[in-house]
């Protein structure tokens, strides 16, 4: 199917009143969650997942995806106005966004980030449309060996490219893989690690785990901490950038879109890294790097274009291979599987309407976000003033009822408590919880492909290197691991990121 008939098909699916409604709900919820500091898109997707059970798969996917990219738009608001990132992906935006607020240019900063987010998102959507089906076509030839190697690369990348210690990231991934073996082994039917608990025989519940690690753990960290939340009012008139602003921001936006899309396509590297790299790159190519950190408009436009582009581009490996780029995408993948949709190469031909409908809905959603964002900016700023003491019990209630309603199981709610404590301890000791969730979601597929690849090769471990595509991915994985062994390499790069 060529690009244009694909878009035509997608328009048919995505421009129905039902699809438009759920797209609007999705992006509004995402925007809302993104604006609120502390609760990220991951917890938001997990929280709304139970509600989508009762929808058509198409509507459910449009809505969940909308939450996901909508949160990227909203996240910059708190970064700019309060120097407090709404989501981790917009932390870099605060570096120059907050100084702009102090100079009385908050309106301009919000306007520019909205426009650059839109540009970055649209750029990457075009890439998804052109490359995802092609990648799917290529992946038809993949066997278990290739799948194993790609997933290994994704997991190692997720572990080592997060902004903490690489060995702690690896521990988190391995722990997640081990957690995924709880329950029945699909090949032999043996029950593993159930400790005699009946509920554990079906394995741990993804939603419960995500809510514990990213919902409850965040509440525990942030509750009862007095916060100064008095964002200044932003008037519509103040939004309009000068001609100089526009001239200064268009090139960084284009560069940011490229960086973000590239990072998004890589398995294991998410929007947070994309934003950091785009910022570092912009600082490097700038003629006057000393302006960065003091309200440089390039410093907000490049990372915002990059994180939105990365979020959209991450759909390429997720849809074509079933391999998510980061933990948020992994939860979205989990949601798709619960709706009985397994992304894999055949997805583009057997579920063509679903794919094109979803991608066209990205466009619709980005357009809605643009329209929602600019005239309603005052409303989003007001959301920041809702006190946390009212918000937190409400979030906790939605976590409880949401997890309970997945399978009407009190046991799942108890799982939330356990992973809330695990997530809290991991945060305190500097272990990143996101790679653990990725390991948990990819674990069953990784084990299955590992076993199947070695079954086909009659136990010959060389099968992973003899197949050229698999060998390339393993070489990349090895290069990443080797870079860990050279402590100077990462230490220097981190030091540079930290000082930026």
């Amino acid at each position, binding site marked *: 199917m060529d690009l244009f008939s694909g878009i035509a098909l997608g328009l048919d699916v995505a421009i129905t009143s039902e699809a438009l409604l759920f797209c609007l709900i999705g992006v509004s919820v995402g925007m809302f969650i993104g604006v609120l500091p502390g609760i990220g898109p991951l917890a938001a997707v997990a929280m709304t997942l*139970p*509600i989508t*059970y*009762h929808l058509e798969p198409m509507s459910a996917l449009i809505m969940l995806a909308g939450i996901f990219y909508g949160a990227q738009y909203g996240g910059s608001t708190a970064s700019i106005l309060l120097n407090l990132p709404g989501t981790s992906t917009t932390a870099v935006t605060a570096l120059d966004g907050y100084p702009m607020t102090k100079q009385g240019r908050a309106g301009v900063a919000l306007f520019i980030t909205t426009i650059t987010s839109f540009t970055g998102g649209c750029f990457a959507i075009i890439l998804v449309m052109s490359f995802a089906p092609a990648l799917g076509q290529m992946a038809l030839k993949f066997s278990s060996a290739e799948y194993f190697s790609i997933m290994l690369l994704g997991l190692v990348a997720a572990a080592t490219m997060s902004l903490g*210690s690489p*060995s*702690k990231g*690896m*521990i988190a991934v*391995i*722990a997640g*893989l*081990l957690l995924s*073996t709880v329950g029945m*082994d699909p*090949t*032999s039917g*043996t029950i*593993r*690690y159930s400790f005699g608990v009946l509920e554990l025989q079906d394995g741990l519940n993804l939603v419960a785990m995500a809510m514990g690690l990213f919902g*409850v753990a965040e*509440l*525990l960290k942030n*509750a*009862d901490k*007095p916060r100064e939340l008095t964002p200044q009012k932003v008037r519509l008139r103040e939004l309009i950038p000068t001609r100089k602003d526009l001239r200064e921001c268009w090139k960084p936006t284009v560069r940011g879109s490229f960086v973000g899309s590239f990072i998004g396509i890589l398995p294991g590297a998410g929007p947070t890294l994309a934003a950091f790299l785009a910022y570092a790159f912009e600082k490097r190519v700038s003629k006057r790097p000393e302006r960065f950190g003091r309200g440089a408009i390039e410093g907000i436009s490049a990372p915002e274009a990059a994180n939105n582009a990365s979020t959209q581009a991450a759909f390429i490996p997720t849809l074509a291979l079933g391999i998510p780029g980061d933990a948020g995408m992994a939860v979205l993948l989990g949601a798709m599987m619960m709706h009985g949709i397994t992304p894999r190469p055949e997805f583009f031909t057997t579920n063509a309407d679903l794919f094109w409908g979803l991608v066209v809905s990205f466009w619709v959603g980005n357009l809605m976000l643009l329209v929602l964002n600019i005239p309603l900016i005052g409303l989003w700023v007001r959301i920041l003033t809702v*006190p*946390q*003491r*009212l918000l*937190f*019990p*409400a979030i*906790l*209630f939605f*976590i*409880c*009822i949401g997890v*309970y*309603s997945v399978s*009407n199981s*009190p046991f799942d*709610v*108890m799982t*939330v*408590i356990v992973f*809330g*404590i695990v997530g809290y301890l991991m945060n*305190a*000791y*500097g*272990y990143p919880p996101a790679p653990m969730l990725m390991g948990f979601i990819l674990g069953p597929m990784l*084990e299955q492909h*590992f*076993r199947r690849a*070695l*079954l086909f090769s*009659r*136990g010959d*471990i060389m099968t992973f290197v003899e197949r050229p595509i698999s060998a390339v991915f393993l070489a990349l994985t090895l290069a990443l691991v080797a870079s860990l062994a050279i402590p100077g390499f990462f230490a220097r790069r981190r030091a540079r990121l930290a000082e930026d």
Partner: protein
Amino acid sequence: MKRPGGNRQEVAAGLAWVAIGLGAIVIAGNYAFGSITRMGPGFVPILLGLLLMVFGAIGAWQGRRAPEVSLDLRWRPFVFIMGGIVVWVLLVDEVGFVPSTVALVVISAQAEREITWLETLLLAAGMTLVGYLIFIRGIGIPIAAFGS
């Protein structure tokens, strides 16, 4: 701050992972191991347990020089947030959705010292109503509003 004695908390965390890996291997010893061609259900867990032990040991080793962990365990949010969830899940099948949700909001609201009783009660009423409309009326999850 780097101290010559190292950071005990970080080292302990690394060793805890080694112990978890060891535990996973011991338990997986009960499952059929199989051969590399036909792996049994125990093969991959044992492999993962070994990897966890290796990386846990690396973590402990690196932890000797890591900066001090600041574990600011504040009991107030911990007790009231966790307590709220436990009470909700224990009550919901016994006395129904409305009383358990009120209990959840009232308990978890105490995690913040600044909240007033009026705010707490309004919040409890609001959440119960919204939750009832979305989840019981809307989605129809099988929980009674009152009673079991």
